């Protein structure tokens, strides 16, 4: 009885096994690495907005404070999006006929809010509260990046659970003095008080910051 397979079958059998092993390895590696990538987390992503609003122009150029538009950031879980009236407090006087601002004028006319697309989002099972972070010395830029330099608003941080936990496990070095909270270009330097001093001054409880129920209810 002759052989069932020709000698070349050995090569193809080994090659198949090797390819299967490689496929498993490549799949595992991609499942592992892909969620870590900026593409998976949409870092640098700037979605199209109804109006191409520039934080760079309004904040750096004109010096408008974050809280002028995001008014509830100090007192509420939600930072708050400005009503059309906030835009119109200036734009009823200047650039009143600009084509770019057409959607804003329509919004006022029809009494329908502008539908901005959310850039910075966390899953619904994360109970993020802006006010407590502001009250305890976490600046806007820690999560939103240097918004004051953004011509179009883009997502600056990965916002993975790892990102949240990096700070919750060691908050001290990320805290800043009260007057720097809304300074989105701030970085820690020699004049910044020591992390321990800031932790003590803000009274940040380090015992339970990584409890599941701190973020997940």
């Amino acid at each position, binding site marked *: *009885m002759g052989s*069932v*397979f020709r000698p070349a079958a050995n090569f193809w059998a080994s090659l198949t096994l090797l390819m299967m092993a490689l496929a498993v390895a490549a799949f595992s590696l991609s*499942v592992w690495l892909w*969620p870590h990538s900026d593409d998976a987390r949409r870092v640098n992503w700037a979605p199209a907005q109804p109006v191409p609003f520039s934080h760079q122009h309004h904040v750096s150029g004109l010096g408008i404070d974050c809280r002028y538009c995001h008014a509830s950031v100090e007192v509420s879980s939600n930072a708050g999006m400005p009503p059309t009236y906030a835009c119109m407090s200036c734009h009823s006087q200047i650039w009143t006929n600009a084509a770019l601002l057409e959607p804003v004028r329509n919004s006022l006319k029809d009494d329908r809010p502008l539908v901005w697309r959310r850039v910075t989002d966390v899953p619904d099972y994360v109970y993020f509260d802006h006010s407590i972070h502001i009250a305890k010395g976490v600046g806007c830029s820690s999560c939103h990046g240097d918004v004051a330099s953004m011509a179009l608003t883009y997502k600056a941080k990965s916002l*993975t659970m*790892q*990102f949240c936990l990096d700070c919750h496990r060691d908050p001290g070095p990320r805290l800043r003095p009260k007057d720097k909270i809304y300074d989105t270009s701030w970085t820690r330097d020699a004049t910044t008080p020591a992390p321990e001093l800031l932790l003590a001054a803000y009274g940040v409880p380090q015992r339970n910051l990584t409890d599941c129920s701190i973020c997940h209810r």
Partner: protein
Amino acid sequence: MTLLGTGSAIEASADHRKPRASDPIVFPAQTISSMTSTICAPPLQRNWPLWWKLSLAGALLFVLILAVAIGWLFYAGIGIWGISWPVVWGFAIINYVWWIAIASGGTFISALFYLAEVEWRGALNRIAETITIFAAACAAIYPILHLGRPWLFYWLFPYPNVMGVWPQFRSPLLWDFAAILTYVISSILFWHFGLVPDLATMRDKADAPRTRRFYGALALGFRGSENAWRYYSIGYGLLAAVMAPLVISVHSIVGLDFAGAATLGWHSTQFPPFFVFGALLSGFAMVMLVAVPVRRLLGLEDFITGRHFDILGKLLLTSSLCLSYAYLMEAFTTFYGPDAAAKRLFIDKVAGELAPIYWTTILFNVLAPQAMWRRSVRLNETLVVLISLLVIVGMWCERYVIVVMSLRRTHLPSAWGDYTPTVWDWMTLFGTIGLFIAGLLVAIRLLPTVSMFEMREVILRHARRHR
């Protein structure tokens, strides 16, 4: 004549189809070549009889039901099951423990008894291992379904994820994932490795080129050279040595899944051995339940003899006695200990609303196997099948008692609740039974049901002894 009408040495053996006490391990009329052709004949037969087609069709119907139940579960979520607070573990865990315990018999017979060098295992280990594979596959489905978000099952695996957290290494549930994964993978390897020389025989026996290529590819180029056999037996011994402790560790860890929780009736140090005993009982019962009809249907009476019935019956009885001891200790430690809630729970078990389930467990797992003390019962095919079936059902009831009873009566009477399985629970249970049967039917259709290379050794040894 077998049902398949293969026409071989079997025909001469009509007189010893009934198992007898005087049976040898293999009948001396069988030579190596008659054994090989008897065992190779069924898988190489082109047309299989009606019983096989009908059983497969029936089993596949249940597989379809399983697919529907799982599909709806994925779409609608585990709210379709009967579980709720406080009975948060229901059919999924009961069935999981039941199936993984059934899987134990194969590993025990083929790995532990291989290391112990017992002769009788040669005729049974293939059937037993096949049971292990499909029972473990049925078991492995349940914890995944039970997760609630099954598509995230890989979160159980410790890998550097973007969440910045690791699984809880102190939890038996994580050990369970590792133990089951190891068990399933090594069982499959052990099964295939044990099949390689037989697949090579099938390749050489087959006529049709396609059949030869099928078995040839599965045989991985095994040619039976002296060198190949030397490495083969080393490899087989190593795998057996890995598998034998695994069967103990897997069921111990399943026991720890319960014992690790501070729940009434679970938080007990005897749970790991208790679960190993239960696993062995249902494992041996399933081997009997499958081996008895397969022996008749495929004409294996010369290889699975009265001697095997006798041994399996004794093993069933022994494991039943071990399990009875665990039941007794459960009662003893409850009343020896100080916990009033534990005593109340135990009384609820034996005299409460669900007491019939508890007493069914005792009747089927403790009392029914006692009939095996009599040799005439051990050799009676009908009774053996009946007792094995009772044990399999009894073991399911035992898991129902363990899982549901403890959860519905917690320490706080204000948190007491109830559990009623839904139609989806039952569909999943019967669906996995269909999957198991379908798997076995396909396996006996395609593969040699008895390990031929091991039978050759047995036959040679017997021939030498009788010369």
